[in-house]
């Protein structure tokens, strides 16, 4: 077996000092490659995968912590501001990782299939979009007819308060939706949440009359960001200007700031998730997931436990929505389609439902596939179209290929394949949750 051979090789490298050496070498190699070739996707992949070797090699937890902090807070941001596309990629990875971690509570821990998860994300996003823009004064204007000199309703710094408000509002929405439907069996719940996701999207699309709340399909813009003092910009350029090679503009620094906020959110979510999972509630979730009837027999309040999972997952999505609205300064119903929900679900399933490192890995993999592999393929096809190349045997000229064929838009294919293949070949995910892993090991020894 090839795989067992690799495992043996890995185990031999994964001992004592050698493990430290490999991790450091990987990080340095990645940093060096990206630094010398800022445009290469492959170099970026080498750097990003160093998180993986940090996770898999057996090193002391203090080393892991320090290396992780240096990677996430120093190396990745500097690489990001040198090539702004990387910053976008890592920002999206962070946002989707946070969303996937939130959905993981619902799907992975409590075993409830939520197909309308981005609805809560939309609730958060539209909340800040309404209060953090001029939309309040546009209420009586049809989309596109508002005067241009309107004031903002709230100052940008209330953003921080609205993260809390977003958590509460999305959580309450989750409870209101969950109360009637959580009594239902799992597959009905899936369809109802799907319907709810569509309802929110249609509402966002159509609530531009009779009062203009959402500005319809055009979306709301501009949305305010929290202020950033000039001091921070000067300070950043003073320290890192030499390494970056040019002065970083405030706009790019904003992207960096939102990346850091997303990281903070991830840490908070991981902390809360782990504490919850180790508590009585977490054990109740596991029981409900494995066998509802047995859980009831053990005296677990079924609906209340499901509702908790639903509300906790929803509130994280709400907070991320507020963050998204502020970081993009523009939102429209497009961003909250059913496909997004399935995208987040495929991240959870790919990584391993119930497993925190797995879900983060899933989010990173799907986002990179989406943003780098599919788009890279698109660019390659475009180059082929412009060339005179011909497919040999069938004698088909590449330039005759329809321009409609753009792999970057084939995300559904990607998500669909991930879901089917994972369900058939590895339902526990790439990094199975520890409990699942124990079960799988026990099955093998039998």
């Amino acid at each position, binding site marked *: 077996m090839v795989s067992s051979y690799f495992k043996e090789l890995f185990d031999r490298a994964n001992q004592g000092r050698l493990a430290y050496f490999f991790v450091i070498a990987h990080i340095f190699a990645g940093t060096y490659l990206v630094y010398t070739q800022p445009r290469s996707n492959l170099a970026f992949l080498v750097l990003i995968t160093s998180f993986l070797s940090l996770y898999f090699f057996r090193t002391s937890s203090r080393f892991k912590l320090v290396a992780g902090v240096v990677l996430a807070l120093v190396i990745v941001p500097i690489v990001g501001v040198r090539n702004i596309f990387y910053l976008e990629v890592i920002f999206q990875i962070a946002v989707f990782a946070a969303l996937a971690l939130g959905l993981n509570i619902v799907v992975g821990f409590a075993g409830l299939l939520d197909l309308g998860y981005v609805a809560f994300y939309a609730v958060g996003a539209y909340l800040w979009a309404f209060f953090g823009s001029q939309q309040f004064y546009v209420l009586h204007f049809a989309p596109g007819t508002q005067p241009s000199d309107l004031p903002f309703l709230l100052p940008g710094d209330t953003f921080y308060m609205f993260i809390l408000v977003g958590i509460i509002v999305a959580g309450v929405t989750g409870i209101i939706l969950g109360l009637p439907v959580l009594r239902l069996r799992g597959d009905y719940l899936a369809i109802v949440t799907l319907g709810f996701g569509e*309802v929110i999207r249609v509402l966002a699309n159509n609530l531009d009359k009779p009062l203009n709340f959402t500005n319809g399909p055009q979306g709301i813009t501009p949305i305010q960001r929290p202020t950033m003092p000039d001091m921070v910009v000067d300070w950043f350029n003073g320290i890192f200007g030499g390494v970056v090679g040019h002065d970083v503009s405030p706009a790019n620094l904003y992207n960096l700031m939102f990346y850091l906020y997303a990281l903070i959110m991830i840490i908070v979510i991981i902390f809360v998730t782990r504490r919850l999972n180790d508590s009585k509630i977490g054990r109740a979730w596991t029981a409900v997931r494995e066998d509802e009837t047995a859980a009831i027999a053990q005296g677990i309040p079924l609906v209340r436990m499901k509702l908790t999972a639903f509300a906790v997952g929803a509130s994280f999505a709400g907070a991320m929505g507020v963050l998204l609205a502020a970081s993009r300064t523009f939102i429209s119903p497009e961003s909250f389609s059913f496909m997004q929900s399935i995208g987040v679900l*495929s991240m959870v399933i790919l990584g391993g439902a119930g497993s925190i490192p797995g879900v983060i890995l899933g989010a990173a993999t799907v986002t990179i596939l989406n943003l780098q592999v599919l788009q890279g393929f698109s660019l390659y096809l475009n180059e082929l179209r412009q060339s005179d190349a011909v497919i040999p045997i069938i004698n088909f000229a590449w330039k005759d290929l*329809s321009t409609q064929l753009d792999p970057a838009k084939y995300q559904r*294919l990607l998500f669909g394949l991930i879901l089917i293949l994972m369900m058939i070949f590895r339902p526990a995910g790439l990094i199975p949750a520890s409990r699942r892993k124990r079960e799988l090991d026990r099955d093998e020894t039998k």
Partner: protein
Amino acid sequence: MKQFLKRINFYELVRPVGQMLTFSVGSAVCMSVIAVVLALILDQTYIGADIMEKYRVTLFTYTMINLPQVVIDGLTIGFVYAAIALGYTMVYGVLEFINFAHSEIFAVGAFVGVEFLIALGSAGVLSGASLPMAYAYLTLAIFLGMLAAGGLAVTVERVAYRPLRGASRLVPLISAIGVSFLLQDVIRLVEGVTTGQFNRIFPTFGNFDARIIFGKLAMGASKITMGISVKSIIVIVSAVLMLVALNYLVNATRIGKAIRAVAQDRSTASLMGINVNRIISLTFLVGGLLGGAAGVLYALKFTRIDPFVGFFPGLKAFTAAVLGGIGNMTGALLGGIVLGMLETFAGSYMGVFTMGAAGSEYKDIFAFSILILVLIFRPQGLMGKHVGQKA
């Protein structure tokens, strides 16, 4: 001949027709009464005055003028929903599993039928076709759509569902969602590579766009035109034929008996010598055939299709199946007709009744509201029996 006639179970041929008639007339009458009463009430408020000012008619007259067309549209779409809903309900009855990819099976049927007709059109066959030939081509298109969709349904079951049988409930459901997404993009890919277009238009031929006018009814100053388009008649008639055939298959043949046995208890059925896997495949085939035909009929009725055309009809058909009581075939029929009616009535009158605040743009989410209400108040559906969850 006599022997053959003796074998036919006429009761099972007449019963579904009677059911369909009852359901159609019943839901049409109910909805019409509600709409008319609402109109009469709202006439007293300033909504009525507003209509009076704009169109110089009372709200009551406005409602009455549109009523025949609304009822017919509702019936047409209702029968399409019923045909799709039967696919969901049969699979659910046998496997207790929501075949999420059924909406894409429907879309594939629509695409195969329409592409066939477009190919005929570009070959120049359609434009000069006589009326019988036009109907023959349409029938052929429906058959091709059925074959493609049925074959696809069986393949999907074999590849993506069968390996997962026996896993926990959510596993095949997630796989089905994956299949649904995959198929949407596969349709898009195939259409993109071969034709370069994602939106396909049902070609115009034959007399399908014509309207048959029965007569006019005087209604105050204006007149109500009583008419029906040929398309709607074709859709309704073919749907009725298919539903009768399906009912006969399930309730009056040996195969149908096997399907019912598997639905009731899979392991016991297999002890009785029924090949369970073959029956499950057959169920998917029948569901796919119906879905494919519904796809072509849908394309005939609404003319334009795109790779995502299956999503909303699929969801609504699922709603219809739940509304009628999932797993119950008569229920799916009732649910489809009722849902089609409700939706068409809401789409046509909500805009006027609320003075444009909430119009037909909410038509698509109307079905979901019904779904949620049904699930809260009567989760077993209108006709379903209450069954406990199988452990």
